[in-house]
C-alpha cells in the first residue's frame, strides 16, 4: 500500500485536472471522440470553480474563438478536440499566434484523412508542427507518451504559452486519451489565478489598447513576422526537449514520438536482450524539433529508423536534421492501426541484419 498520492485516471481527465491545477480558468469544447472525457472533466470540475467558466460551444470554430476572447481577457484558457475538429480550429489558432495570445490546444488525434476513424493515429504531425493554419507562424508542440506525462506537459504547456505569448499544442492520440494509468499531480490549483498584465479589460487608468493584425501597410506586417520569427528562434534555442534510451553504444537508433515511442521502447528493450545494439530517441517537443541532437547522434550512428503511426511525417524532420549524414529507414502504420512492440522488433531486427550492423 505504498503510493497513496497516485490516482487512476484516463489521459483525457488527467489533462483536465492538470489544467485546472495550472490555473486554467476557462475551457471551451465541442464533443468529439476520443477526447470527450476531457470536456466532461471540465464540465464537472471547472464550471463550479469560482471565477472559472466552461462552455460547450456550438462548433470547434466557435470554441477556438471563445478561447481567443478569454485569452484577450488575460486568463489561462484551453480547448481540446480531435483531428477533424482541430482542422476547424486552424484559422483561430493562426489569429492567436498573430495576436500573441497564449492558449493551450489539445489534439487527441485519430485516424484520418476525412472522418477517418476514432482509433489512435499520429497523422496530424505535419499540421501540428508546421503551424497548421494560414500565415507564417509556428506553435510549440508537446508530445506526451504516458498519462503522467500528459499531466506534466499540460502544466508546461500553460507556462510556455505565457512565457512566449503563443498558443501551445499538446499532440496526443486516442489511446493516450482513453487509457488509464496511475498519475500524480504535483501542483495545487491556485486560489486566485493571475490575470496577464496586458489583458484587454477596459482602458482604466491607461490609454486604450488595440489587439489586431490587419493592416494596409505590408511593412508593418513584415515587422510582426520578424518579431514572431525572432521569438521562434529563442524557443528553438531554449525549449527543445527529448528523451533518449540506450543510445550510447547504439548502431541503430529508432526515432519515435508519443504512443509510438512507448511501443518502440518496448521493442528496443527486447532487441537489447537479444544482443542488438539499438537505442531510442523520443522527441518530447515536436516543434522545436531536436534536430541538433539527431545530428550529434549521427556522428556515431549511421542507421536510423523512424517509426510513426502515419505514412512518414516526422521522417522529414529527421531527414532534414541528418542532412544526409546517416541513412534513414521508415516504418509506419496508419488509419488507426496500433502496432505491437513485437512487430516493431521484427522491423528493427530485419533492418539491423540487412545493414550488417551485427558484424
Amino acid at each position, binding site marked *: 500500500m505504498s503510493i497513496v498520492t497516485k490516482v487512476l485516471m484516463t489521459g483525457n481527465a488527467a489533462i483536465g485536472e492538470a489544467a485546472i491545477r495550472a490555473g486554467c480558468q*476557462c475551457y471551451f469544447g465541442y464533443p468529439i471522440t476520443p477526447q470527450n472525457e476531457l470536456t466532461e472533466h471540465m464540465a464537472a470540475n471547472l464550471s463550479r470553480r469560482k471565477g472559472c*467558466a466552461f462552455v460547450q460551444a456550438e462548433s470547434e470554430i466557435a*470554441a477556438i474563438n*471563445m478561447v481567443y476572447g478569454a485569452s484577450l481577457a488575460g486568463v489561462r484558457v484551453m480547448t481540446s478536440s480531435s483531428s477533424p475538429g482541430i482542422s476547424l480550429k486552424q484559422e483561430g489558432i493562426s489569429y492567436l499566434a498573430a495576436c500573441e495570445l497564449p492558449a493551450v490546444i489539445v489534439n487527441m488525434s485519430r485516424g484520418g484523412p476525412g472522418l477517418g476513424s476514432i482509433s489512435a493515429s499520429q497523422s496530424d504531425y505535419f499540421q501540428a508542427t508546421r503551424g497548421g493554419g494560414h500565415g507564417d507562424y509556428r506553435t510549440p508542440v508537446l508530445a506526451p507518451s504516458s498519462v503522467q506525462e500528459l499531466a506534466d506537459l499540460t502544466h508546461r504547456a500553460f507556462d510556455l504559452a505565457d512565457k512566449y505569448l503563443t498558443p501551445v499544442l499538446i499532440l496526443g492520440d486516442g489511446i493516450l486519451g482513453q487509457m488509464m494509468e496511475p498519475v500524480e499531480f504535483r501542483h495545487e490549483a491556485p486560489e486566485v489565478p493571475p490575470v496577464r498584465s496586458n489583458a484587454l479589460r477596459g482602458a482604466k487608468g491607461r490609454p486604450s489598447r488595440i489587439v489586431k493584425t*490587419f493592416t494596409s501597410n505590408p511593412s508593418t506586417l513584415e515587422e510582426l513576422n520578424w518579431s514572431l520569427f525572432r521569438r521562434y528562434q529563442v524557443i528553438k534555442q531554449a525549449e527543445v526537449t527529448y528523451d533518449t534510451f540506450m543510445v550510447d553504444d547504439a548502431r541503430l537508433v529508432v526515432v519515435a514520438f508519443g504512443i509510438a515511442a512507448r511501443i518502440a521502447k518496448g521493442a528496443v528493450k527486447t532487441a537489447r536482450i537479444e544482443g542488438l545494439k539499438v537505442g531510442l530517441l523520443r522527441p518530447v517537443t515536436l516543434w522545436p524539433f531536436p534536430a541538433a541532437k539527431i545530428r550529434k547522434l549521427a556522428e556515431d550512428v549511421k542507421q536510423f529508423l523512424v517509426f510513426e503511426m502515419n505514412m512518414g511525417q516526422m521522417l522529414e524532420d529527421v531527414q532534414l536534421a541528418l542532412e544526409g549524414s546517416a541513412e534513414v529507414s521508415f516504418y509506419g502504420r496508419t488509419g488507426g492501426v496500433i502496432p505491437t512492440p513485437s512487430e516493431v522488433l521484427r522491423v528493427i531486427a530485419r533492418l539491423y541484419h540487412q545493414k550488417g550492423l551485427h558484424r
Partner: protein
Amino acid sequence: MKKIYSRPKSLKKTAFHYCPGCGHSIIHRIMTELIDEMDLQDKIIGIPPPGCSVFAYNYFDIDMAESAHGRGAAVATGMKRAYPEGIIFTYQGDGDLAAIGTAETVHAANRGENITVIFVNNAVYGMTGGQMAPTTLVGQKTTTTPYGRDERMEGNALRISEMLALVKGVAYIERVAVNSPTNIRKAKKAIRKAFQAQIDGLGFSMVEVLSPCPTNWRMDEPEAWQWVSDVMAKEFPLGVLKDVTGESHAS
C-alpha cells in the same frame, strides 16, 4: 457662440476612412457619444469584424480586438465569461453576422450571453466589393447577382432579427436606421437600451442598423438615404422586435 459640435471623448481624432454617406461613420459617432454619456470608456471592450469596419479601432478610443470573420459572438462569449465585469460589444456586418457567423450568433443568443451586438445591415458585402449578402433584397443587383437576386436560386433576404427574437435568451432586439436625423436619434436610443440591458445583466441584446452603402449600391448619398426608407425598410421593418427589459426591471 453656442457650441453645437463637440467630438466625443471616446472618439479618436482620426478622420474616418469610410466613403461619404456611409452608415458606419454615423454609427461610430453615436456609439462613442453613448460611451461618453454612459461613462463606459474604461470598462467597455469592442470586437470589430473583418469588413469595412475592420479599422473601427482607429476611431473608438477604447480597448478593442479584431476577430476572425463571423466569430464575434464567440469571441465576446469567451471574453465575457473570462471577465464578466467588462461591457462587451461586437460590431458586425451582415455578411459577417448573418452568413459565415450565423451559428455563433444564434448560439450566443440562445445561451443568453450577456453581450451586445451591433449588427450593421447594408444589404451587401461592403469590404470585398459589393457582393451579395444574406440580407440582399430580391431583385437587388450586386457583383455576384448581376441580374438581380433571384429568390429561386439565391434565396430571400434573411431577417436575422426576426429569427433571433424567437430565441429565449434574448433580452432586447430593435431594428433602426441611420438615414435621417429622426432615425439616428432613435438608433442612439436603441443602442443605449442595449448597453443598459447588458449592464443590468439581462442577457443578449442586439441592435440591427439599416445602414447606407452608397458606394456598392451605386447611388449618391441622398438616393441611398432614400433607398433605406423606401425599399430596405419595407423588407426590414423598423421597430422593437423583442424587449423583456421592462419586465425584468419590474420583477
